[in-house]
């Protein structure tokens, strides 16, 4: 088993395009790390550098205690699990799992042993003699995983292995892969563009944007303590509500004027987490409020309520309702937001809203308390949970 270390790694293509900038982080032995980011962020390039499928322009890449910059993919002792896999319909599950070892001239006894071990781990023992068509979609995915497991590599590299599956199976497989990695205790680097996948699977998540590592942290830390506006906007579904606001004095503490005529008192707990915001009185900053950090007006103080917000849309999801309320807050229109949204149409809409002087906020409600479309609501804000960022650099004001 082995750790994977990126040590000041850069990737510059012959035409001068730089895909990775000074990437440094470590995947510890047995750890499951997810690389996530929007398209073009460099996550797949980073993974492929580990696999030996992209040359490293400068810096060092280590697997275990070996610098592998110049080793071929074969010499690196890693198993790459792609989104593509094919099960052979006439071969048994056992043969489907073990055939690559046969090609590598591993003895029959050893193949049998490794296949049995892998099958046990994957819950496939009773299916070993069956044909793939007798298996469910999830079991077939496990057979594909089994192919990688029997190789007993130092590390697994997974490049969006679930992206080809339907939504239901994808959700089921997320849990299975995470549990399997936990049982296998093999260092794993997993790439996805899906931040929900990232947040639900890994020990830690590395967020990238335009070739630059933005933050590596546990899912909880990323969610609760984003380093910058990009991470704040990218991580979380539905996304964090972000707006420009002016920091003002408010009683003994500070407040934020989030839209004309609407100032909210900021709880000291928030300024304790973001102490630099205290130096920004009189300045505009970016503030973030997650959809679940709103409350009924009666549950917060009067000076923490946004009043008179028209309900534009109600998404009833069963266990919760997501209510889109119109506000006159100013959206953040920046390259960070463009990257975080990763959808040109949606970003154009944000720009349009900015020009029109408002944007909707998404508020999470219990279904029984959700308002209806067309109503006007007052919404309490748990201001102890507000996030603060520099409006220009996007950095958290910590």
């Amino acid at each position, binding site marked *: 088993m082995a750790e994977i270390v990126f040590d000041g790694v850069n990737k510059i293509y012959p035409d001068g395009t730089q895909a990775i900038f000074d990437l440094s982080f470590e995947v510890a032995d047995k750890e499951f790390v997810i690389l996530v980011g929007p398209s073009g962020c460099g996550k797949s390039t980073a993974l492929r550098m580990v696999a030996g499928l*992209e040359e490293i322009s400068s810096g060092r890449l280590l697997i275990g205690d070996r610098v592998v910059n110049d080793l071929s993919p074969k010499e690196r002792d890693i198993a790459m699990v792609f989104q593509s896999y094919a099960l*052979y319909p006439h071969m048994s599950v056992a043969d489907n799992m073990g055939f690559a070892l046969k090609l590598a001239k591993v003895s029959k006894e050893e193949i049998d042993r490794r296949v049995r071990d892998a099958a046990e781990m994957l819950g496939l023992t009773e299916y070993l003699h069956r044909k793939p068509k007798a298996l469910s979609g999830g079991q077939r995915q496990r057979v594909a995983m089994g192919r990688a497991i029997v190789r007993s590599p130092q590390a697994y590299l997974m490049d969006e292995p679930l992206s080809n599956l339907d939504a239901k199976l994808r959700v089921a497989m997320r849990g299975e892969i995470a549990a399997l990695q936990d049982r296998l205790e093999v260092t794993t680097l997993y790439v996805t563009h899906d931040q929900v996948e990232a947040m639900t699977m890994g020990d830690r998540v590395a967020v990238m944007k335009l070739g630059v590592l933005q933050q590596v942290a546990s899912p909880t830390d990323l969610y609760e303590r984003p380093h910058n506006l990009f991470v704040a906007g990218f991580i979380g579904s539905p996304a964090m509500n972000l707006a420009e606001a002016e920091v003002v004095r408010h009683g003994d503490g500070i407040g934020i004027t989030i839209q004309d005529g609407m100032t909210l008192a900021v709880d000291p707990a928030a300024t304790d987490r973001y102490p630099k915001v205290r130096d920004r009185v009189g300045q505009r900053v970016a503030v973030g409020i997650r959809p679940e950090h709103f409350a009924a007006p009666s549950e917060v103080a009067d000076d923490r309520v946004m009043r008179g917000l028209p309900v534009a849309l109600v998404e009833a999801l069963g266990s919760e309702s997501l209510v889109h309320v119109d506000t006159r807050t100013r959206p953040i229109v920046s390259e960070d937001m463009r990257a975080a949204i990763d959808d040109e149409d949606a970003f154009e809409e944000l720009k349009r809203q900015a020009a029109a002087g408002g944007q909707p906020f998404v508020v999470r409600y219990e279904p029984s308390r959700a308002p209806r479309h067309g109503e006007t609501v007052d919404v309490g804000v748990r201001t102890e949970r507000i996030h603060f960022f520099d409006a220009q650099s996007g950095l958290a004001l910590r």
Partner: protein
Amino acid sequence: MRLQLTARTGHPDFLDLPWDVPLAAWDHPRIVETPLGIHRHVVRTVRYEDRLYHLKELPRRYALREWSFLRHLREEGVPVVEVVGVATLRDDADGDRLDACLITRHLEFSVPYRLLFLRREHQALRDPLIDALAQLLVRVHLTGFFWGDCSLSNTLFRRDAGSLAAYLVDTETGELHGELTSGQRGADLELAAERAAGELLDLQAAGVLDDAFDPVAFGVDLRDRYDRLWAELTHDEVFGPDEQHRIHDRLRRINEIGFDVEELELSRGDGDRTRLHLRTSVLEPGRYQRLLRELTGLEAQDHQARVLLNDVRNFGAWLTRTEGTSLPEALVARRWLERSFEPVLALVPSGLRGRREPTQVFVEVLGLWQRWSAEQGSDLDLLEAARRYVDEVLPRAEEEQLVTEDEAGDEDVAGWVPDALATTGALDRAEVARRVREG
């Protein structure tokens, strides 16, 4: 119902298809069953008059990638299936979004590998298959494309004189680079060797492939063949001042394997030795196909083109002898078309035209003409040889567009039989059924 469909001109608009229903559930008169390889996605085939189109349902981003990759590779001269459309933003009746669908035109006279093994002697297939796959992978890599999914299932094969020509079918996992690193090429080749071996092991498990056929050795030989071809095309050659002929030798060898070289890079280092370096981007495959097209307008596979060009040259020499004067090459080619190629093909009755591609018919007639002429000790008339071929050989040749009931032992092929019998357009169902019964 929402639908966005991008289709190339020269093909149907496909708007009569039930796009608001998942592809697997289509029950539509245009659907025909065809033998396909092992696929991760739902793939169905539709028929518009005499043309077949394959539809593959997959997530939108992969469909759009594959759409652009297939078009790019075709522009680069790589043998790939022709992509003609992509349906995206498909909504079902409830407004829920369905996966996208990629539309490719069926490659006529092509067969998947499983059918090849059902039809032909297995050991005789081995080397042509390896050559075709290695050649295809090299051509793909020369364009800077990492396939990521090279396998027999993702390839279609066509007759090419006595060899096979391989066509790339599936690119959804590919990546386009300026130039591939050796690591990328090596990994792609490793994957190809592993998958091909897996597919052949599967054929053995199905009882289709002889036990004497060694799938593992097939994978090993595929690697060797690829490495040799790549080295011949790209290795740097260093030679002394009195060895200029080695440039010409090298170019001749490259031409012989079907590539043209657009430019050379020669550099002189310390001493008098010169280094010849060939950049992969200046290697242009399809030399003989291009020459044949320029000369005659005919489209052919690589080995077919070599045979036909050779015959045009022989015909020119014969014309010079009989007319006492040397004619321009273009004129020779025109007369060859008028006096040899077209009259031979005109002898093939419409009922037998589904058995071989026209250029393959001519190549096979030439081969038999040479054999029969040698046997009788003097030149047989070419048209006489063609008549014998049409009477004695072609009726016994298997339909390239059909399968027989005997071939349907493989379950992937079995489901295809009823509809496939009617796919030639040249035969009605009753006639095909009679032929199948009579073998």
